[in-house]
């Protein structure tokens, strides 16, 4: 598998560190109920199909990337910079 980093171009999978599903972007507010933290840290939709997840371009530009891809076929639909996403 290769990922097309918006800054560095088409790069080998080994340059990236994998974190997990997009859920990690939705950190609960301080003081949120425990169930929300559990949801954020542990519970996952874990789809067999389209998933959005977080990759870190460790051996490249050091940017966090939000990748939309298919977990069954390994096809990549899009790669965005987390830093440039509208909040």
């Amino acid at each position, binding site marked *: 598998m290769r990922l097309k980093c918006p800054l560095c171009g088409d790069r080998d999978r080994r340059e990236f560190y994998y974190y997990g599903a997009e859920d990690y972007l939705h950190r609960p507010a301080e003081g949120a109920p425990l169930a929300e933290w559990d949801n954020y840290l542990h*519970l996952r939709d*874990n789809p067999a199909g389209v998933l959005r997840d977080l990759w870190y371009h460790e051996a490249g530009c050091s940017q966090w990337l939000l990748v939309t891809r298919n*977990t069954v076929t390994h096809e990549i639909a899009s790669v965005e910079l987390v830093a440039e996403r509208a909040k």
Partner: protein
Amino acid sequence: MRYSGLKVLTEGLFGNKGWGPAWRDPSPKGEYDAIIIGGGGHGLATAFYLAKNHGLTNIAVLEKGYLGSGNIGRNTTIVRANYMIPGNTEFYSHSMKLWEGMEAELNYNVMHSQRGLINLFHSDGQRDYWVRRGNAMINQGDDAILLDREGVREYLPYLDFENTRFPIYGGILHPRGGSARHDAVAWGYARGADSRGVDLIQNCEVTGIDIENGVVRGVQTTRGAIRAKKVGVIVAGRSSQVAAMAGMRLPIESHVLQAFVTEGLKPVIDHVISFGMGHFYISQSDKGGLVFGGDLDFYASYASRGNLPMVEHVMEAGMTLMPMIGRAKVLRSWGGIMDMTPDGSPIIDKTHVEGLFIDCGWNYGGFKAVPASGWCMAHLMATGTSHEVARKFRLDRFATGHLLDEEGTGSQHNLH
């Protein structure tokens, strides 16, 4: 039909005409006392122990493909009881005892071979860790023997003892560890369950779970609706999909794990060996193939095949440890879908739906767990209470903070 030496002999003399199928191929009935979703090792063992230990025989196992088509037929068959933390150690110890009685219990040859597992260490820190883990194993009543470098050399003279980057300091020998024939374990439990009246229904995919007022009523399948008072979800890598049918979101991410086998060779590797630097472990099957593997591909995937970087890593690690395998030809590689939990330990528990139970989160270590998981899941489904050796495998432990992080690597699905 009971298998015996005499039976093999007489069948051999009279043209092998007297063998029958090992289990029936029934059509689903309209209703059962209990349904098991998933005909892998864990589902079949659960059905077997429900019938044998709890006298529940009006039950069915529903399998979307054929029996043993999932991870039970894809793993690298290591059986061990070398866990360290409370919650895990008693469970795997129980499992090992069941392994040791399995062939007699099932009247089936699962080729269980306690050839010994050797975990190597390569630094002072790793030695301290393994000494501690070995002591935990001994305290649990299992076996562990500390080997120094020369002790390892006696068992495994073919390792590269000259390697200066990853010197071999020693190893922990777990004599009761070993391997077994994976398909045979599924077949043995299938036959045992069938002969006690359990319906094993293949090509029957569960597509929905019927729930009324918080109580499970049955399931929808590609072969029609089936009612049941109790339902057990035991579907390994597909746990999130099936649990979602009951409105649940699980603490699971599915990852692919690869394995490899070479052409058949004469006996050369007598033990199961695990490298302590880089991910590589190996054993030799009874057919002669070297069976080996490494780590996850490290990202969520439902493809039953992996990527080349992990192939390369595994080959490199193998060549570093035992250069002699360099001329063996790799025949096949494959992948299986692993149900990874954030702490690397499994779940055997009730759910928020009455009568609905779940057994999942085996990560890449569920083969050795097959008998004890079946035993404990059957206990839970029959009695409504957790078996004492599985009482920490709770579904809510992530929310409550009672993690079972055997490796101490943290609460992230791909770190175990």
